[in-house]
Structure formats: C-alpha cells, structure tokens
C-alpha cells in the first residue's frame, strides 16, 4: 500500500519543485523584476545591521528568493491537500505573471508607472513554463483525488493489491491525458500565427472593440464546454440512485 502511495507523493513532489523552480528562475529574468530589484535592495540595505547579524549577504538576493520559493513549495507539498496545492499554484502564477507581461501587447503597467518591457527570455520558454504550471496544477488536483479514492476503497474492504493497481492505472491515464493535452495545446499555439491573418480579416469588419469580441468568445467557449460536459452526462444515462437495490433484508421481516 505504501509503495503506490509513495509513488504518487514522489510524483507530486517532483512536479511541485520543478514548476516552482522554473517559475522562480523565469521571474528572476523578467524585466519587471530587474526594474524593482534595485528598489528592493535599497530597502533591505537600510536594515543592514539586522542582515549582518543574520549573516545575509545581499549579493545572494536572487538565490534567497529561489530558496524561499522552493521552501514554500515544499511546505505546500507537505500539506498534501487540495488547499495546499491551490496555494502552490497561486505562488507559481505570481512568479510567472511578470514574464507573461513581458510578451503582452497591451502595457497596462505603463499607465501606473513608467515601464518598458524588455524580454530576456525566449517566448517558447515562457510558454513551456506556462504549460508546466497548468500540468502541475491539474495533475496535483487529480493526485489528491487519487489518494482520496485509495483511502475510500481500502475503507470499503478492497484488497490493497487491487487498490494499487487502480492507483497505477489512474496515474498512467493521467500521464497519457496530460501528454495528449500538451500536444494539442502546443499545436494550437503553433497554428495560431497561421490562422491569425484570417481571424484579423474576419474581426476587422465588426463594429466592436477587440476586447468585447474576446470576452464574448471566452464566454462562448466556457458555455460550450459546460454544455458539452453536461450533454455527455445525459448520454451516459446512469441509473438513478433510487433504482439501486437496498441492503438485503430477510424476506417477511
């Protein structure tokens, strides 16, 4: 029993640390971080006495951020529940967001303070890190569920070997599904520039701003997804619970 669970936990740890490391490294190379780093160092240098007493050298500030992020990631993994992994995703997104801004068409930050994005990382790498983030989030949410299923099945009296088989199957299925999704999304990413010209031609004629069109499209995609999922449930036609026989009792009693 321990072996399959250890396998799941190790996978979780690997994904959590890898995604946090990648986002943290990406953060350290963003132009937004570069802009704010001197300001942060100036603020920290005011408390030089305390830093000296703590034997912290500001020359290792980047490394400190990396270690802090990894430590938080480890802490969230140790909790091992859905809320912990939710926080891990939030932390990763927080570190990932500055790198995304570097590649955005609209510079909203420039409205608040003078900021000129100068990306130092290749676009593909940022996209790859984003994919890793999504994979980590979805995979961790599912592994938590897998562990819950394990507990439930063992509690219901299933054999541990059978439960191990189920866990292994679920993990394999998840890995396959993730690989497939990554392949499809990457294809979409590469295909987008090719259809961009066609889309621009179609949308140019519309008398609405592109943001409105985008939001409408997003809502339509979300609605279509929900309708698709619910439609599939109806097709499945599972038996309602009241048709399931109750626990057998002695006849006539």
């Amino acid at each position, binding site marked *: 029993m321990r072996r399959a669970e250890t396998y799941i936990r190790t996978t979780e740890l690997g994904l959590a640390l890898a995604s946090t490391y990648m986002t943290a490294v990406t953060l350290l190379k963003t132009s937004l971080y570069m802009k704010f780093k001197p300001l942060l160092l100036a603020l920290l240098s005011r408390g030089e006495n305390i830093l000296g007493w703590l034997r912290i050298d500001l020359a290792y500030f980047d490394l400190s951020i990396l270690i802090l992020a990894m430590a938080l990631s480890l802490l969230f993994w140790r909790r091992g529940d859905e809320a912990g992994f939710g926080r891990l995703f939030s932390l990763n997104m927080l570190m990932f967001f500055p790198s995304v801004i570097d590649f955005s068409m609209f510079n909203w930050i420039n409205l608040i303070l003078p900021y000129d994005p100068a990306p130092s990382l290749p676009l593909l790498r940022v996209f790859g890190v984003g994919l890793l983030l*999504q994979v980590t989030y979805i995979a961790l949410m599912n592994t938590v569920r897998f562990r819950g299923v394990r507990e439930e099945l063992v509690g219901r009296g299933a054999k541990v070997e059978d439960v191990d088989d189920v866990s292994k*199957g679920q993990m394999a299925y998840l890995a396959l599904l993730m690989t497939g999704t990554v392949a499809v999304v990457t294809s979409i990413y590469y295909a987008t520039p090719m259809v961009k010209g066609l889309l621009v031609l179609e949308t140019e004629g519309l008398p609405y701003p592109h943001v409105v069109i985008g939001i409408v499209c997003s809502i339509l995609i979300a609605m279509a997804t929900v309708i698709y999922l619910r439609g599939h449930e109806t097709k499945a036609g599972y038996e309602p619970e009241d048709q399931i026989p109750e626990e*057998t009792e002695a006849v006539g009693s």
Partner: protein
Amino acid sequence: MLNRGVQELVVSSFAFLILGMFLGNLILIVLGLFPIVFLAIGILVGQPGEVEVRRGGEDLKVWVDGQVGDTLTAAVRRGVGLVTVGDRLPKSFRLDEGSNFKVLWKGARDVEASFSYKATCAKRGLYELDSVPWETRHPLQITENRLGACPAPRTYIVQPKPFFVRRIRERKALTRVPMPMEAKIKFGVPTTDFLEVRDYTSGDSYRMINWKASARLMSASPRPLQVNEYEREGKKMVWIFLDSASHMALGTTVNNTLEYAIQATLGLTNFYLSRACRVGLCIYDYDAHEWEGTFQRTRPAQDLKPVLASMERMEGPTKAVGDETEPSGARPQPRRRIVLPDIGRRQQFKIMREMLNVDTRYSDESLKEAIHSCRGHIVGTRPLFIIITMIDAAKTQGLVSGIRELHRYSGSLRQQSPSIIVFNILGYSVAAQSEEEEMAADLLEFHNRPIYAALKRLGATVVTWNPRAKSFVQALLHQR
C-alpha cells in the same frame, strides 16, 4: 451535475482567457485552452460501460451460525476507469473469509476478475439476494459515477436451531414437562363418554339412533330422528401462542428475546410432535390488545332475499345488514398468523417455515383475538396451551384477558380449567450487557412476582427462563 473539480477547471480556463484578452497575450489565451482540451479528451475516453457479474455458488439451506459462501466473476468491457462490484450481504451475515467487495482497474483491454467469500449467518430468515450492484468511475472522476446492478439471484434459508428436549439425564429430577390432559377432538373414533343428543344427519349409524328420545319429540311435532353423540378420541393437542410484540426485540439484532422465543417454540414443537401430539401455532402481538375492537364479521352476510321472497311483508322495510356502513375509524382486518394443528414432520416443516419469517409485529392480533380466531379448533377439545411471551408488570391486561378467553372456550368442558403454561422469557436479562444491568434485570423480574401469583390463580403455570443463566431443558425442569 458537474463536480467541483470540473467547475474549477472551467472557471480557471475562463479566467486565463479573459486575462489573455485584456493583456493581448497569446500565451495566456492558449494556456486558457489547456483545461478545456484536457476535459474534452478526458470525456472522449469514457468510463467503463458494460459490467457483467455471474455467481458461481448455489442456493443453500443452513442452520443459524452456519456458513455460506459464493464466488462471483465480474467482466468489464468498453471504456477506461475503475469498477467496484460488491455483493450486498444481509446485515446479520458476518464475513469470515475472502471479501464480498472487489475493485478492479479497467484499462485498454477487457477485464475479468473473480472474488469469493464465506460468511456466517447469525440470524434466521429467508434471504434473497436479487442482484449484485456495481459502480463504474471515470479515472479522473470528470463525469458522474455510473451505478447499476446485475441480476444474479441467490437464496439462503437460515433455519433457527430448535432446543431439542430429547431425554432428561438427571435421575433425581422429576420431569414436569406437561402433556395435554385429554385427547378429545371433533373427529375421530367415538368413545363411550356421552356428549349430547342431536338431529340425525345422513351418514350417522342406525345404531346411534336414540329411539326413545326420537319418539318423544316426534309425538309433539314432526322432527328428524335423534342420535346419541359421544366424545371422540384423537391425538392430544398442543396450542402454542408466540408473542411477536415490539418488546420481544429486547437485546441485540442477533440475540434478542424473540430469537430465544422462536427457538423455544421450535423446541416445544419438536418435543410434542415427537410424542404424537397435534401441534398448532398462533402468533400474536401482545400490544395489539390496546387497540383491539369488537369482533367483526370476516365474511359478508349471506343473501337471504331468495329465502325471504315468499314471506309476506309484515313490517316496513328494514335496513339490510350489508347496507350498514362501516363506522369511521374502524380497525382494518388484522393479519392472522395461524398454523392449524397437525402431526408429523410435515407440521414441523410448516412451523419451521413460518418461523423463518417471524419478526416483531409479525401479527396484528392480540392474544384474545388470536384465541378467538382459532376458537373453532379449540371448542370441544382439551389441549395444552403454551403462551410464549415476556411478562412485563406494567402491562398484563392483554395476557390476563387472553387467559380468560382460553377459559371461555376450553374451560367450560366438564367444568375443568384448561392446561395453560405461560413460558416467560426474561427479556431484560437477555438485553443486560453489564453487571449493573443484570442487577436491574433481576429487580424487574422481582417486580413480576405478583403477576406470576395472579396468573397462577387464573390456572396458568408460569415457567420463567433466563437464556443467559440456564438451558431450555433446565427451565422446563425447574418450573413451579
């Protein structure tokens, strides 16, 4: 309904897309599509759809505490996911070996798996397992779990163990297990004991005609011939009245007062049947005396119109019996549970079969009503009545009225009181789990002493039995 995980994915996807629109960022927009693509592919590869379950064992008839076993084979086809199959055992069954629950992973290939179990049946009854329920789940639980059941009938008959009273081994002990006093019934070989003079009916022997009485009566008015009727000899008869009121449920599901009462019933049935007695059984509800009403006609009144057609109308039209409306709130026809007296192994089987179904509130009749229901088989006979119940000092009215009813139908014969045994099972002692509870049970039993004296005055013998303290045979030997 979409589960929480799916909703979260849809919402996160939507958030990514909106954010991507505001920032004009292709990465965020494409990443926003990730959860949607994930869900779409996940749903395309659906959960298992076809589950077939077969049983390998056979229907069994066992005694209480006997063991039953079964082997089930589950075959799963189509889809990917986990499948659970569980044979729902009755509550009173205890799993000894194996498991009645199986979980299996259905991958790309079809799967077939077997599992077997052995279980001990702790309570009597007829258990019919109709189907084997199964559940299939999507590997990531994106869609709702699918529930179903495969028809796989199986019947277990768990027979209660009777307390056999075969032989008394204690030499000094004087067995006081009573036998019916006389063996007179309506049918059988006539004895020399004169009963009455009655009208001649076809089939009566000419030797039975009482010529003197016939001449006397026929001289006054035209009458049929008169014949002498004599008492008839037959098998001795025993009537067992088993209480199924809710207070008999005292104790655990498996070891309660009713279970001991059933075992005692079977023991007594076995004892008397093996001694060539006719044994009848009637199950009643002690508490039913609280709502018992007047005895009502069970069959509709006969249509007397053809008979009365020729009669001249003397008075105004009267209301017909059938036209009478039933008073509002009248008690519906109660359920009767009677096994008519008979002899032999067949009767034993019939009583055993009835015992399989007995549970609390099995009958709707009070003791008095039950006696009234079988009065046709009691009147004119002198059977032994055994009332198996749990005497409670707080409510004795039903028992007393029942015993009076027995006197009414059986005691009038030659002014002799009927043989009645009240077999009292000490339910509180059965239910007692600790020493303190046993003391409380003893105290409650002590409160019952005046009731025993009152019942004795009514002509009944009270046999008390604490199943925890002494055996059934000892209880019969130590009766007062």
